[in-house]
């Protein structure tokens, strides 16, 4: 029986492997993103050739030019996939990492923009991920635009959000229309339950299936070799999701 986290990992791994004009050869994942990191590892386990750079590993991180290197890599176009979230995400894929209220941050102040205002433009594929799926997160219009979901023509931009994965469903994003489309429902969700939990407008795919969960082989990989590879980087997550460590 797969956990919710394992289902989300599998859903993101499916998105990584989905047909897309820009293939993923190199994905970068931040310290606070265990589910995306596991998803990249699962996509690799399934056969994709992807380099995974885990940021902020204390020992043995892949970068040798300090924290600047991640952003230089993205600027060079050498990072194909990045993950972003936000305290708010709106229907045009604008993301808010800074805070809510007017002025922004007065209601709730979050840590800040990090690299999002840059990475959303320079990395060709972004998967938005936010487990909480509620009207306070998925809003009609973000209180603060850390980075816009789409840009006017003539703006340097390598890509956009490919999809938004939440605890309830997967939305795909169409940058031409600047709109999300509900693509699949996680087990137990309905068109109606998602509609009620979503503060922004979106379209619905005609054929709306259940989000594909992890296979038995996926689960064995996640609980075995992938856990072993990521345990040092995400000890708390691994203990919580995969249970006590095998001796």
């Amino acid at each position, binding site marked *: 029986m797969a956990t919710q986290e394992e289902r989300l990992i599998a859903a993101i791994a499916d998105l990584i492997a989905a047909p897309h004009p820009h293939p993923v050869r190199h994905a970068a994942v931040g310290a606070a993103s265990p589910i995306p990191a596991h998803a990249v590892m699962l996509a690799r386990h399934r056969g994709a050739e992807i380099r995974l750079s885990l940021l902020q590993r204390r020992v043995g991180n892949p970068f040798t030019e300090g924290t600047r290197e991640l952003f230089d890599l993205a600027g060079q176009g050498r990072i194909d996939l990045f993950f972003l979230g936000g305290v708010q995400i709106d229907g045009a894929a604008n993301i808010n990492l*800074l805070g809510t209220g007017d002025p922004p941050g007065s209601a709730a*102040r979050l*840590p800040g*923009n990090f690299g999002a205002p840059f990475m959303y433009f320079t990395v060709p594929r972004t998967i938005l991920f936010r487990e909480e799926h509620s009207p306070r997160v998925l809003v009609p219009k973000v209180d603060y635009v850390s980075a*816009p979901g789409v840009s*006017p023509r003539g703006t340097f931009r390598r890509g956009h959000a490919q999809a938004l994965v939440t605890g309830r469903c997967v939305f795909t994003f169409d940058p031409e229309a600047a709109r999300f489309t509900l693509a699949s429902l996680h087990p137990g969700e309905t068109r109606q339950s998602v509609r009620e939990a979503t503060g922004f407008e979106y379209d619905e795919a005609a054929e709306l299936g259940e989000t594909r969960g992890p296979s038995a082989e996926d689960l064995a990989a996640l609980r075995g070799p992938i856990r072993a590879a990521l345990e040092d980087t995400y000890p708390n997550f691994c203990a919580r999701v995969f249970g006590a460590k095998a001796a």
Partner: protein
Amino acid sequence: MIPPPLLELDALAARVPDGATVALPPDNSLCPVSLVRALIRRGVRDLHVIGVPVSGFATDLLIGAGAVSRLTTAAVTLGEAGFAPRFTVAMKSGALPITDATCPAVHTALQAAEKGVPFMPLRGILGSDLLASRPDWRVIDNPFSEEKDPIVLVPALSPDVALIHAVAADRAGNVWVGRRRELATIAHAAKTTLVTVERIVDGDLTEDERMAPGVIGALYVSAVAVAERGAWPLGVLDLYGADQKALDAYAREAKTEEGFRAWLSAHVYGPAARAAE
């Protein structure tokens, strides 16, 4: 070629003037926490703290101690320990003016100072509310493009003082920071660089081809003090890890002013804290 002086920690802290613009590395990058504690003991005031590119534990201490009058940073977080408690309180009360940034813009501003140019361009950012909040940034049309191609220019940032922790210093004042090259950029960009180190080593680090790539040369270093375990409760490369229990305890206790004061008493002002330095 007089080497930078080797001082006691409190004497190093005395070289940071009130009102200075002070650059601090992030929590995972040789952050000089002992020096920050010494600064709080000396009652430093009115600092403009720059997070390079983000801020964490050390900055939260300074905010809680009332030493910060402005903060420029791409984010403030204690990482796994959660939100930075004194930062969160200060933002809620509106008491702390903040200039928000984004990580690559902080690096770009320091690299412009490192190269001695007044600005550097940076992709992205266009159409964000971040850009709207930074009147000190400019947008021009890329002069090399035939077509309309707006691009952000970030002005050079030269902090008054860079505060960094290094693994070691030699007697010539060269310091070793390893792969944390952003610390070199801070030192290059800053007018004054004050360095705490785990230890002093013999020999010249720049004469050893294996060590030289991780060195910040003495000519950028204004003064050095030894501070063993000087990043605690943060970590130093592979020497020692972050003390996650201590950080979790801080994140919990410092949520209240009272708890923060108790933390300062125990870990900054207390005789045990002083004896440990």
